[in-house]
């Protein structure tokens, strides 16, 4: 799976969770940019990503994720 494909999959999840069909995210998108991206929705996002890509994040890893780019990089790492 390419980074682009991963990115598109993650974007679909963002669109579902925040219910905005035309939402566009970028590498540098972070919780500061999306009003509803609070700690509880963060859990919902991560959980949906784990299910969709069949990966599992460890506790400490989640704390360190600053933006979408960091999240995708970590996913690439895990999918290797």
């Amino acid at each position, binding site marked *: 799976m390419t980074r682009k494909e991963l990115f598109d999959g993650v974007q679909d*999840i963002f669109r*579902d*969770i*925040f*219910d905005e069909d035309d939402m566009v995210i970028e590498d540098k998108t972070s919780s500061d940019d999306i009003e509803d991206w609070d*700690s*509880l929705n963060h*859990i*919902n996002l991560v*959980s*949906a990503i784990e*299910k969709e890509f069949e990966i599992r994040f*460890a*506790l400490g890893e*989640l704390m360190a994720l600053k933006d979408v780019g960091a999240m995708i990089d970590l996913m690439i790492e895990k999918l290797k």
Partner: protein
Amino acid sequence: MEIYKKITALEYPLDVNIILRKKKSIKKYLLLQDNLIEKNIVILGGSTTSEVKNILELFLLNNGIKANFYESEYNKFYEDALFGNDILDKFNPDIVYIHTSNQNIIKYPGYKESESEIATLLSNEMQRYKSIWSSLFKFDCAIIQNNFDYTLDRSLGNLDSSDIHGKTYFINQLNSEFAKSSREIKNLYINDINYLSSYLGLKDWFDKSLWHQAKYALSLSAIPELAFSISKIINSISGKTKKCLVLDLDNTCWGGIIGDDGLGGIHIGTETAVAETFTSFQIYAKELKQRGITLAACSKNDFKNAKEGFEHPESILKFDDFTSFKANWDPKHQNIIDIAKEINIGIDSLVFIDDNPVERDIVFSQVPSVAVPDIGADVIQFIEHIDRNGYFEPISLLADDINRNQYYEDNKKRAVEQSTFKSYDEFLVSLDMTAEIKSFSSIYLDRITQLTNKTNQFNLTTKRYTTGEIDTITLSDEYIKVYGKLTDKYGSNGLVAVSIGRIENRTCHIDLWLMSCRVLKRDMEFAMLDELVNKCKDQDVSEIIGYYYKSSKNSMVSDLYEKFGFELTDANSEDTIWKLDIANYENKNKFIGVNND
């Protein structure tokens, strides 16, 4: 009428991923429905409840209930219940849901503690919940309380469930105390997460990582199942449970085709594995029947062949178990409409089980208010589709429910007699009817409350009451409140009619007037009116005001007050207001001997 399809992801088997990901768009869709009824629901959480609330909202909407929520702050369930706060005190809840779990147990037994010290721990833990429940009585609302799930880890291993120091043992005792309390306290209903967590598997139920990150006491994927379970209780409290199970016959009640294979050729009994699975299904249907669910048959068959199937010596169900039996070659949706008419219940009270997907489609598309679970073709799956969807979830086992089938069967006999009389009046005389029509008394609180919540057709205002409200009305002098029980030569029909009038300045306003459809056309409503007028005169009331509020189901009583001789005073919309001056009232009931206060 708006064409609106239920969301299948929200029915068994749940599509958990869709629910969690698409909850916002599902909610938008469900909010487009007409005729949503509103409920105020308080969630008191012993752990995080955010997603529990979001997902519960969907399940309720899918059943026509729009919830307004109040959520306690994190783990403030005890404080909110006992001490309240400004918002909660004004919220006026219909339902309080207490979302606690084993994480909220304050202290488990220590290994050195004696039996009596452990008994004290148990009693302390119980005392917390008992004070929560009694503090909530002031709201006159239903309380839904989780019992306790088991802990994932057991340092005592298998001994944990048998030694008095074990956590599992302690939890079992607490659960047994909760069950006891729910039998003693009106309006307290247990949400059995102990069962639910074992159904799902404890290791999938509890997510340690999610607990430490976000203080959710269950995994995200378990939340839809939890919300589903709560919604079943709320449906039941709101009188939305189904009443009648409609069964196809060939390859549903037995294996094979009775018309082709003959009585000796169908699979039922214990001879083979296939026969056994059909027998299991019949046993389940029989259990439902024994606790008051009505059975009906709907089969494309010659009547004689279909009936013969139940004469099989190993058949658990017998022909007489079916209150309505349709075996013919008419389209099934037509038969199903006839079944509802014959039994005299709403079409949305039916659940249709058929192994044939084409028949399911026809019924579902022609009469969408009938529940038609997508059961597949394998009988081994059928029970779970009925059971897990909670169509018949009861909140209590009232004698009246268990006897309901008897009433319907007696009604069949009455119908046979009716056809042999010259006039309807003559038939009514022959029934030797007597009624007990009296003011509410405490022994009937549950039955009266239940009737107010589930009677839809013969109900002028469709006003719903909680047990607490009925209790208050029973004790108040400002209300005239009468119930009616009707007996005839075939037996008792039970408590079937309820009227509540509120007195203000010599005027009686009829807030509620309802009657069970099982006694339609028996003149019971006239006997009730006579008693209401009597009581009005005793209290120096001079006129009675009746209200008809149109709902989707109560058109049969739109002209009731007219029949009663009331004058129409107001008809701005489909709702109407009626007035009766009682000075020259003459009794209307001619056929029922009345035993009053």
